[in-house]
């Protein structure tokens, strides 16, 4: 009798497997069509670094050299001069060698004004390693192209279609901020 029970178990198991497989057929594929269709990756991931400029086109960067100092790979090179019109400094040169950058985002954490940020853009691959030496124009361009970026100081920020820079809503912030806020509100209400 146990033989028949065993056979019956096997038949049931195979039937369950067949049923699962058939259900899978109807599900949409999980494939990323990457080179043809770029996925939206969150800005909190460290991919490209970008320099953000203010809405009026001036640099956010105050040339404080914090990022240059903190960079463990020492790939940031900054040249600055005294601001002729007021106090502080202006950038003359801001080079970042992506070939040696280890994407640790220490520079992003160190920046006091959230000028250097992480963005969702990630297509680094080039044919010549010399192309990976980015200059200020390139970093500015990436910053202008970015719709959304992240820095620990200001959180996720985004550019509205009109060109205004605003803080992103809590749902888009990392670390489950929206849930935390919701809980806090619920706590107050109760």
């Amino acid at each position, binding site marked *: 009798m146990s033989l028949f029970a065993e056979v019956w178990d096997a038949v049931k198991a*195979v039937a369950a*497997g*067949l049923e*699962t*497989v*058939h259900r*899978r*057929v109807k*599900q*949409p*594929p*999980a*494939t990323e*069509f990457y*080179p*043809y*269709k770029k996925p939206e990756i969150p800005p909190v991931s460290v991919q490209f670094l970008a320099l953000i400029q203010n809405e009026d086109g001036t640099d956010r960067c105050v040339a404080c050299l914090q990022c240059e100092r903190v960079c463990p790979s020492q790939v940031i090179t900054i040249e600055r001069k005294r601001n002729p019109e007021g106090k502080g400094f202006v950038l003359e040169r801001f080079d970042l060698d*992506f070939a040696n950058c280890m994407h640790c985002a220490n520079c992003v954490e160190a920046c006091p004004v959230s000028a250097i940020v992480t963005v969702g*853009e990630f*297509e680094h691959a*080039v*044919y*010549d390693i*010399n*192309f*990976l*030496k*980015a*200059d200020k*124009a*390139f970093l500015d*361009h990436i910053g202008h192209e970015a719709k959304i970026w992240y820095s620990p100081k200001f959180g996720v920020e985004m550019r509205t279609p009109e060109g205004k820079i605003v803080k992103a809503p809590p749902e888009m912030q990392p670390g489950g901020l929206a849930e935390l806020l919701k809980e806090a509100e619920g706590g107050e209400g109760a």
Partner: protein
Amino acid sequence: MSRMPLPTERLVQPRLVGYDPTRPKPWLERIAYALFFSALWVMVVLAYGVVPTVFRHYGWLKSPLGFAAYAVIEAVLAFLLAAVVALILIVVLRKYLGKVQERVGPMHYGPAGVFQTVFDALKLLGKEDFAPRRVDWLIFRLAPAIVFVSAFLLMVAIPVAPGWLIADLDVGLLYIVAVSTLGAYGVVLGGLSQGNKWGLLGAFRAGAQLVSYEVPLAIALLSVGVYAGSLRFVDIVEHQYGLWHVVPLFLSFIVYLVASIAELKATPFDLPEAESEIVAGYNTEYSGMSFAFFFLAEFVELFLLPGFMVLLFFGGWHGPLFGLDPTSFAAGLLQSFYFLVKVAVWVWIFLWIRATLPRFRDDQLMDLAWKGLLPLSLVGLLVAALFRMFLEVL
């Protein structure tokens, strides 16, 4: 200083030929498969219907020259049919496995990638057919031929409609047992001759597996023969008017199903070419067209073994005829269509099983064959004989 190019300025922009993932077109895929099926049908009608009917009608088969012409034409047509079957089944298999595993499958050539196999075949044609220095050259070259020929010869025995067959064999069942066993030789010799440990292991496994599964397969076929009272396929199919054999011979049907999956070397029993264990098993060292012939044989068998299953257990070409004369050409068209549809359904079930079950272990395989299927097939034979006895008495 060289400037880093912006992503939009890159020299190479990725471009997708033939398929736009943002707008998937399942209907295009379906049309392509319908065209595939029609091509298969046309080939079957040509090879099994038109040419034999014409030759028999004009009596050309009686003269030696006519017979030679018939043989040559049929050989070419059967080869083309085999190629069409393989081209279709490979892409269907890949698409189906892709869907099961939540991938897309081939997608670059043709609408939704349905012409992928054509390009694969062209690639294999263009590749060097390389033989390593230590192989046993003659056997190494002969093995793919043996495997392919044994699959190819099986096509002769299939009747697709009444009177639509290439050769009317009185001992059709014996013939397919004999010829399909030949394929095991090709696999074993191919594995042994290449002087490669993976090939050797694959050959061992193939030898053990194919030999042990031939026995229940042959007994299952025998029980059908006993029940139908004939070894001719035409008689067997005629015998199923009223009741398909799958009902009285259910045990034999189960044995045939399992044994034919093992015969196909498909996934629950794909030990001879287990990719994750022994590279590619018996065809490790093969490349180019030699490899393609192994592949071709495998997929022709994937078409033929369900075909025999339909003939033996599912009433072959039976289906509603809408008052047509069963011997007319139009009825032949319709009946071959029914046959192909049944075969297609069974091919799908084979692929389904293949996509579901994990691989057996060697000893489990032998257990199943000798301790499970062999007694079961003998019981099936007994049942067939008993039913036959009642049939005779009534």
